[in-house]
C-alpha cells in the first residue's frame, strides 16, 4: 500500500462525511458525473463489487460490471487482452479483482486510467483495510494505540496483509494469531507480534478481526480438519472472553459460520462490527473514487 498516513487519514475523514450524510450526494453532489467506471472482476465478489457499483452510481458515474469467470477463459491472456480492449474504450476508473498477486500492478502498467485494486491474489486488498480502519475509528474514536488481533489464515489473506500495513501506519498495535501452517514465511518481520494460540494472543485485544478460511485448505493440507480448526481458532464467546472486556469483532466476509466464527458472536450487535464494515465499504469507496476522479481531471 503506497498511501502515507496523511492521505489515509484524509480518505477516512472524507469517508466519514459520506457515511454521515449519504443522501446529500444524490441530489447535489456528483463529482463523477460523466465518468465511466468499470468493475472488472475475475473472481466472484458480492460486497466489494456491489459497494463499488453503488459508490460510483451515487457519485454520478456510469458503472459497468464485467464479471469474468476465471475458468471460462485462459486466465492470463484474459487479463492483458481485456485490459487493452477496455483501455481502448477510455474508461476513467478501473476497479479490478484478480486471483493472482500483482495483477492490479500489471494492469496499471498497461492502461492509462486510474486502477483500483479490489483484491489481487494473496497480496493486497487496500480498500478493505481502509474500510476496516474506518470502522474501528468510528467504533472506538481512534486507531492510534488500539490493539487489533488478526486471526486465522494469514498466509492466504490479502485482507491481513493490507490491514497489517495500514493499521500499523496509523498507530495501531497489531497481533497475528493462527496455526504455523497458515503463517507466511518471514511474518516475524512484519512488525506485528505473532501468536500460535488464541489464549496467548487475545488477552488485551480491543478488536478481534477474523479471517476467512477457505474450505479446500481445511481437509488436512494446512489444518487437520474443520472441527479441529474451530476448536482452537474459531471465535466463540469463550475465546472472545479472553480479549479485553467489551472487545469488538470484525470479519471481512463472507463468513464460514461454525468454522472461523460462531454465529452467537457474529450476530451479536453488542460486539459485532461486521454489518457496519459493509456500510463503511460504500462510504470509503466513494471517498477513494472521488479522490481518484479529482486526480484524473487534473491530469487531463
Amino acid at each position, binding site marked *: 500500500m503506497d498511501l502515507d498516513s496523511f492521505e489515509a487519514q484524509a480518505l477516512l475523514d472524507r469517508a466519514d462525511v459520506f457515511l454521515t450524510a449519504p443522501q446529500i450526494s444524490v441530489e447535489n453532489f456528483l463529482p463523477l458525473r460523466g465518468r465511466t467506471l468499470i468493475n472488472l472482476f475475475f473472481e466472484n465478489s458480492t460486497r466489494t463489487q456491489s459497494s463499488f457499483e453503488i459508490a460510483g452510481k451515487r457519485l454520478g458515474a456510469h458503472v459497468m460490471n464485467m464479471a469474468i469467470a476465471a475458468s471460462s477463459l485462459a486466465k492470463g491472456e484474459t487479463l492483458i487482452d481485456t485490459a487493452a480492449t477496455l483501455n481502448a474504450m477510455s474508461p476513467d476508473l478501473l476497479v479490478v479483482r484478480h486471483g*493472482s498477486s500483482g495483477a492490479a*500492478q*500489471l494492469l496499471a502498467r498497461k492502461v492509462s486510467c486510474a486502477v483500483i485494486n479490489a483484491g489481487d*491474489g494473496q497480496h493486497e486488498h487496500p480498500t478493505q483495510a481502509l474500510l476496516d480502519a474506518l470502522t474501528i475509528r468510528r467504533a472506538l474514536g481512534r486507531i492510534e494505540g488500539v490493539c487489533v488481533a488478526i486471526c486465522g489464515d494469514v498466509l492466504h489473506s490479502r485482507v491481513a*496483509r493490507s490491514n497489517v500495513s495500514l493499521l500499523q501506519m496509523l498507530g495501531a498495535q497489531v497481533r497475528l494469531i493462527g496455526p504455523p501452517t497458515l503463517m507466511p514465511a*518471514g*511474518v516475524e*518481520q512484519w512488525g506485528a507480534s505473532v501468536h500460535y494460540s488464541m489464549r496467548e494472543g487475545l488477552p488485551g485485544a480491543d478488536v478481534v478481526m477474523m479471517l476467512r478460511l477457505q474450505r479446500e485448505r481445511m481437509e488436512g493440507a494446512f489444518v487437520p480438519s474443520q472441527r479441529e480448526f474451530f476448536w482452537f481458532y474459531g471465535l466463540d464467546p469463550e475465546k472472545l472472553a479472553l480479549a479485553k472486556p467489551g472487545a469488538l469483532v470484525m470479519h471481512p466476509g463472507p463468513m464460514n459460520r461454525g468454522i472461523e466464527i460462531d454465529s452467537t458472536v457474529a450476530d451479536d450487535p453488542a460486539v459485532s462490527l461486521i454489518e457496519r464494515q459493509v456500510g463503511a465499504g460504500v462510504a470509503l469507496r466513494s471517498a477513494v473514487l472521488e479522490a481518484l476522479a479529482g486526480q484524473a481531471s487534473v491530469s487531463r
Partner: protein
Amino acid sequence: MKGPPQLICNVRLLDPASGYDGPGGLLHQDGLILDAGPSLFHAPAGFTGEVMDGHGLLLAPGLIDMRVVLGEPGAEHRETFKSAGRAAAAGGVTTLIAQPNTDPVIDDVSLVDFVLRRAAARSCVRILPAAALTKGLRGEAMAEIGLLAEAGAAMFAHGDAPILDSQVLRRALSYAKTFGLLCAHRPQDAYLAKGGVMHAGEFAGRLGLRGIPAAAETIGVMRDLAVAELAGGRLLLDMLSAEASLAPLARAKDKGLRVHASVSVHHLALNELDIGDYRTFSKLSPPLRREDDRLALGEALVSGLIDVVVSGHDPHPAENKRLPFDEAAFGAAALETLLPGLLRLHHSQGAPLLALWQAAALRPAQLLGLAQGRLTPGAPADLILVDLDAPFRCQAEQLLSKSRNTPFDDQLLQGQVRRTLCGGKTVFEREM
C-alpha cells in the same frame, strides 16, 4: 590447403589453462591456435600474414555455455539454432550445449543427429546436443544412453524436472559410466517446490506469492550426491541456487566422488529483490534467492567448488511473460548477458578474471572433453576480444535472441564483446 596465418597483437591475453594474464598476442591459422604469448605483442620481424590490432582489449577463449534451452525443434518462435547462434556470438559464447527438453525430446539417435547437422548448417557458433537421460524426460526408463553417446551427444541432461524415482537415477548414472559422459540433473525435492514461484522468505510472504524453500534444493542435492556415491558415474548438479547446497557438495568432493556443480549467471548477479514489483522477467527456476546465497555462490565459483557457470538461457516470448507473476513462465534469455553478468563478480566483488574464465570456458571444456576453452597451441581458435570496462545499459529490446526476457533489462552492466571468432572466423563484430 592452408590459409594465411592471422596475428592478433596488442592485447591483454587471458589463458585459463596456463594461468597467464598479461600483454601478448595470438597467432592462428586454419581455425586452430598456432601460438600465443607475450612475445607476440608486436608482429615479429618478417611476419607476412594478416595482422589485427587488438587495441589493448582482452583476448580470451570464447565461453562454453553448458545449459541453453532452444526452441528448435518444436517451438521455433522461442529460439532457433540460427537466432541462438547469433545471440551467442554477440555474447561471446562460441560453444553451447542445447538442452534436450524440446518437442520432441532429444532422446533418440536421429534427433541427436538432427541437432548436430541442423546446427552446423544454421548457427555461426558450435552447438552440441545434450541428450535426455530418460525416455521423454519422464524419469521412468533410461534412454538409449550408449547409442546417444555414439551419435554425438556431448552430455546427458534432464531439463528442469528432477527424476523422482531414485532407483531410476541410480541405474542411469551407473549405466552411463561405461560411456564416460557427464549427466546433469536438477537437484530438487518436487514436493517442497510444488506450486512455488519464487524464493520462500519474507519477500514472498509480503508479495503474497508461493515460495520454494532453499531446503527443496538442499534435499535434492543430498539425495543426488548419495545416489551418485552409490552408483558411481559423473554427476553435474545442475544450477545451484542456495548457500546451504554448498556444504554437502564440498563433503562429496572431499570424499573423491566425481561430482560437479553449475550455477547460472543470474544467481551470481541478482537476488530475490530483483523481482521488485512482480517483474516476471526475474521469475526463474531455480528461483533467485537471498543476497547471502548470491555472495556464497560467487565465492564457491571463484574457489572452484562450483565448477562451471552457465547462462541457463531459456527464451520465452512476451505472451508467456506478460502475465500475472504466478501464471508467467519460468526462465530468462541469457546468452548475451552471460559475460557482462559474470563480470559483475569481477567489477563489484574483485573476482579474478582467470577464475571466471576457468568457470566459463576451461572447466566446461574439460568436463565435456572438448579441446577449446584455452589458448593452447592446437586448440580451436574460438576467441573473443572483450572491452572489459565498457559500460552500457542493458535494453531487452536490443537483444538478438528471438525472445527478450532478460532480468537484466534496464540495468547497468559493464563489459562487452567487441569481436567473436569461432574456428578462426569472425562471427560477430561490434563497433566501438
